[in-house]
């Protein structure tokens, strides 16, 4: 049985629909990302699950219990907000203890749990500091500690890493991922960052224009988007026109499996990473432009037999020059016919 069940949620603000018929099932101990561009309603969804908003229709179940009439403070779902929401007039310790005090837990147990959390988060030396004395990463650890110390049935993270600079972001992602696995807390993470969603979560829910477009593993969403919209949102894709005839898609790059697709015109989606600049042969192309991006270099190429079709590909090789010729082939098993 699923741990959290979001069932046919509709929500609109002032007649403007923000969420349309969203249903998501989240398993015990799973980390699910809700991925979407800014303003797609993903934060609203999180607030609905936490009980800070009321849905127009639909229900949220946590541990099989319908939460529609349960106020936020009794749901056991804790949000960590984007800006951490630390209480400025309380020390780190008092911040972490807050929920325990509200629950009237006894002092000794409180102190023990808090000390344990400080230890896990590696902020024991900051215990008596005030939030304004902390760095961004430390603030985030305090916010996480404050949520985790309550052993919530559900942890909700709202764009948790967007206020951190790049290096710290990577470190904190790693940290949160380990923490979530170690503590086994069912977690929903809201983000607009694809890489973050892919790195951290077991499954990703892509929300576009208030609709759930796809809910699947990161690998599936990246390589097998179910629609052009999802493919476009994830980005870095070439679309190659062709035709499907009895389960086979054919275009100038070759024939690909398209079983289950109706006959007619279709498009093949190929990620930049799925095209290979192959010295051994493939479709002959000419390089038009190159962009050095660090780990990879993106080349814009045009096929020799069809000067209209341009494609982009990522390659670890950065020595190819614009104007030179190159053979391009498709890495096996990466094709996706839309």
């Amino acid at each position: 049985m699923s741990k959290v069940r979001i069932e046919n949620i509709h929500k609109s603000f002032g007649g403007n629909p923000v969420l349309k018929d969203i249903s998501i099932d989240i398993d015990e101990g799973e980390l699910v990302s809700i991925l979407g561009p800014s303003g797609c309603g993903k934060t609203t969804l999180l607030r609905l699950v936490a009980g800070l908003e009321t849905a127009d229709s639909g229900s949220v179940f946590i541990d099989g219990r319908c939460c529609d009439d349960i106020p936020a403070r009794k749901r056991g779902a804790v949000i960590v907000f984007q800006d951490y929401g630390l209480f400025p007039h309380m020390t780190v310790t008092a911040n972490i203890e807050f929920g325990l005090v509200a629950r009237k837990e006894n002092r000794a147990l409180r102190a023990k749990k808090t000390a344990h959390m400080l230890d896990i988060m590696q902020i024991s030396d900051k215990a008596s500091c005030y939030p304004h004395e902390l760095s961004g990463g430390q603030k985030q650890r305090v916010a996480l500690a404050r949520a985790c110390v309550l052993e919530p049935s559900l942890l909700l993270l709202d764009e948790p890493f967007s206020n951190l600079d790049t290096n710290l972001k990577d470190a904190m992602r790693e940290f949160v991922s380990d923490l979530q696995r170690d503590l086994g807390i069912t977690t929903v993470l809201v983000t607009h960052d694809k890489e973050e969603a892919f790195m951290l979560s077991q499954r990703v829910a892509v929300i576009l224009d208030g609709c759930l477009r796809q809910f699947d593993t990161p690998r599936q969403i990246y390589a097998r988007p179910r629609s052009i919209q999802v493919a476009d949102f994830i980005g870095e894709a070439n679309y190659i026109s062709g035709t499907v005839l009895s389960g086979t898609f054919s275009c100038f790059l070759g024939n690909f499996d398209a079983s289950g697709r109706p006959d007619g015109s279709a498009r093949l989606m190929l990620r930049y990473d799925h095209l290979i600049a192959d010295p051994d042969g493939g479709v002959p192309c000419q390089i038009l432009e190159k962009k050095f991006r660090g780990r990879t270099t993106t080349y814009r190429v045009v096929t020799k037999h069809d000067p209209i079709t341009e494609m982009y590909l990522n390659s670890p090789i950065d020595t190819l020059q614009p104007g030179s010729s190159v053979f391009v082939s498709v890495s096996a098993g990466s094709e996706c016919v839309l």
Partner: protein
Amino acid sequence: MKALFYVWVFISCAPLLVLAVMTVSTFWPYPALLPEIMSWEYYYHVFVQNDQTLNAAVTSILLAVSVAFITLMIAVPAAKALTHHNFFGKDFVKILVLLPIIVPGIAVTIGNQISMIRLGLTGTFGGVAIIHSLFALPFAIRIMSNVFEAVGNRLELQAAVLGAGPAFIFRRVTLPQIIPGLLAAFTLSFTISIAQYVTTFMIGGGRVITLTILLVPHIQGGQTHIAAVYSVLLIGAAVLSLSMMEHIVRRYYNFENVFYA
């Protein structure tokens, strides 16, 4: 900037200085810069010959403190509701709140006097406290609305998802955040109450004697020196009680180094 500040200090303090000098000047003919004969004669008159003075001072302060508390008790929840909650007719209520200071005070007071007579509140401390609060409320609600707007309800939501109940949230999260605003609203309500004359006179019916009740007849009667003594007393009482109040609050909430760091 600094020079401007001193100019401002001078402009606001100079009249008070004249007032202070007036209280001790028995003979101050034009165009002498300072009085030619000085004595404590007027103080003697106010404090010794008039046995109502000290009682009036105590009444004024008690009244002002009560008014400030009543006002805050109403203004805080009202401002909170007007800022963070939506309800039918909210904009109308916002205007309604300002009415006592838009409509001439005397009209408001006469209207209220009729109700107060019916309720048996005229001539009582409570009745006067209520009418003073009525005039302090618009300002206090205004101040607290701005405070709540600036503070937002983000931290309250955060506290709620952490499992805290409304009373706990108010005490541990909201209150510490709005303390500076509360102090401002308290001070203003206090000052409004201590300066009231017409309302005290009409609702108090001469049975609630405050410093202003004693002071005003002296101005009307041309005894400006005695009025000056009362004024100094009034200012002294207000400044003393307010600074005590602020001192106490600061002891409990060391807010400055937290919120404005």
